[in-house]
């Protein structure tokens, strides 16, 4: 961890940290301290680089459009306004925001629920049972994920068109379920594997049926994994762009990414403030969800990075 922390700093932490900083003390101080300061300065620059676009999006979205088209650039909204948000939300243009947001929400939630149920069943099958073609199924799941979506747009378009499901909620939902399913199965499989089958066996000795043992013992332990996987499916479906662009191009059936793209093409270079307000509205749920779940998903390995 902070193995090379400057010797002058009080070291709090694990025994390993203490031990390594003792060795750092031995190899001595000045150069390392300078190094730490240089790295700290670099880390601030990197922080600014990573954060700036997010900051700039929000900053622009709160400024009047004529203000951002001046000769000066405002790094803080001098004239704070919510007008851009009102424009995006309530302007009944050719591509209104709210129906697109509604479509996105319905499609995303349906996708997450159905994919979670299907994936959960499949995950139980591959983790708790031995059967022929188990390995084949796992490899198939991996291989399917490798098929590039861009290559599939044409044929998915034709298949969905053949079922008369273009520009429908069902059509896009079906495609999204198939898209997130392999990933969801793969992740849930990891979570189910993480719960020892011995726990179930213990419950069975105490008189539970196998299904009952699974339901009463393993399922509650899986809840965090299910939630986390569901949130990632949510983010995935919410952000998906190519399939939505091809399958749901009709304005009233658009999802948010397609809406943003259409809005950009219609208002690009004339109303960046409104485009930034729309971008913010689309990005905020994803960022919030992501930050909520990221800690849990990576807690095993990057706990130091996420929780500090």
């Amino acid at each position, binding site marked *: 961890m902070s193995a090379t922390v400057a010797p002058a700093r009080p070291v709090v932490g694990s025994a390993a940290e203490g031990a390594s900083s003792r060795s750092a003390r031995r190899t001595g101080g000045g150069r390392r301290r300078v190094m730490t300061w240089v790295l700290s300065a670099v880390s601030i620059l990197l922080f600014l680089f990573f954060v700036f676009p997010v900051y700039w999006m929000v900053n622009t979205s709160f400024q009047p459009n004529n203000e951002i088209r001046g000769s000066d650039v405002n790094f803080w909204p001098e004239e704070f306004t919510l007008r851009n948000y009102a424009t995006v939300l309530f302007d009944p243009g050719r591509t209104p925001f709210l129906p697109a947001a509604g479509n996105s929400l319905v499609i995303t939630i349906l996708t997450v629920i159905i994919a979670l149920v299907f994936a959960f069943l499949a995950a139980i099958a591959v983790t708790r049972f031995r*059967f022929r073609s188990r390995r084949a199924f796992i490899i198939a799941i991996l291989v399917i*994920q*490798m098929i590039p979506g861009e*290559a599939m747009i044409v044929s998915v378009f034709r298949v969905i068109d053949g079922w008369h499901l273009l520009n429908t909620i069902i059509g896009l939902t079906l495609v999204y379920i198939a898209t997130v*399913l*392999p*990933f969801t199965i793969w992740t849930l499989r990891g979570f189910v594997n993480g719960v020892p089958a011995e726990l179930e066996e213990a419950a069975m000795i105490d008189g539970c049926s196998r299904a009952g043992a699974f339901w009463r013992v393993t399922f509650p332990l899986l809840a965090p994994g299910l939630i986390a996987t569901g949130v*990632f499916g949510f983010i995935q479906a919410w952000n998906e762009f190519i399939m939505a662009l091809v399958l749901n191009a009709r304005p009233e059936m658009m999802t948010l990414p397609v809406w943003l793209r259409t809005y950009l093409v219609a208002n690009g270079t004339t109303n960046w403030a409104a485009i930034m307000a729309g971008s913010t509205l689309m990005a905020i749920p994803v960022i919030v969800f992501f930050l909520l779940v990221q800690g849990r998903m990576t807690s095993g390995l990057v706990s130091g990075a996420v929780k500090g």
Partner: protein
Amino acid sequence: MTTVHRDLDPAPSAFEGERMMAPQPKPAGRRIRRIRGGLTPYSLLTPAIIVLALITGWPLIQLIVTSFQEFGRAQVFGAPPEWVWFENYANVLTDPVFYAVLLRTLAFSAACVVLTMVFGTLIALMMMRLPKGFRILLSVGMLLAWAMPALTATVVWGWMFDTAYGVVNYILVNWFGMEEFFQHSWLIDPLSFFLVAGIIIVWGAVPFVAFTLYAGLTQVPDEVLEAAQLDGAGGFKRFRLIIFPYLKPIFLIVTILQIIWDLRVFTQIFALQDIGGIRALTNTLGVYIYQTSIAGGDFGQGGAIAVITAILLMSISIYYVRQVTKEEEP
């Protein structure tokens, strides 16, 4: 009936969504008991298999079939497709535009992968040495960039690089006195277009690489490093002889994922073209498939390009699949 089974970690796959998930630690050498369940496992798998067969399998077959057919607008409206066998492939493989797109995609992806891996590795190494407060600060910044949807990120960067009112031109002119960037168009020139696209992609991909490698780095035992230090190994030597061998498996998998993701890049290029690039000069494979088939209406030719792209990507990902399934029991 028990089997000894060392489980594999749910490593990130090529699927876009897993960009967001760092791999989890392996449960070390645990025994997992699996029972024979007769038809139960098959019935549990049925819903997933039906959906995948209908929405992934069937279109995949269609894709391959179409790539051997003459399939244009007339066929979309009901005319029977004509079998032309390898004509589409011959057309694609003799088309200089295809090679231009292919080369552009390969060169651009290579640049993005190298930059992402270099910056990701450097940041991961840096995080090991940063005081805690700065490490958290940097992590928060990277998490925000990581969480940003690709489309909104592209739109925002496009606005930052705007010709007339973009903050990048403003800073270059007013802070650094580079007058040549007054009203400078970043997207008209293809090379400069790919510079901007590269910045967007690397900006979005570095956090995943940095966090994953940092996670790997924290697994390197302190004692080994300490012993090497006592034996007089310098910083670079320690990295080459100790840290890198520990990191190699993670490093390889992350690199392959980056290659696959960057080769199939679509959203960033497509949206940036909307903002101001010249499509014909900036198409990458993914966008080219869309342009040929959906926008251009030639499904046969688009299918052939798609199959070629898929084969290219699958051949790269075979290594990944083998790595991930290496320890899977037969």
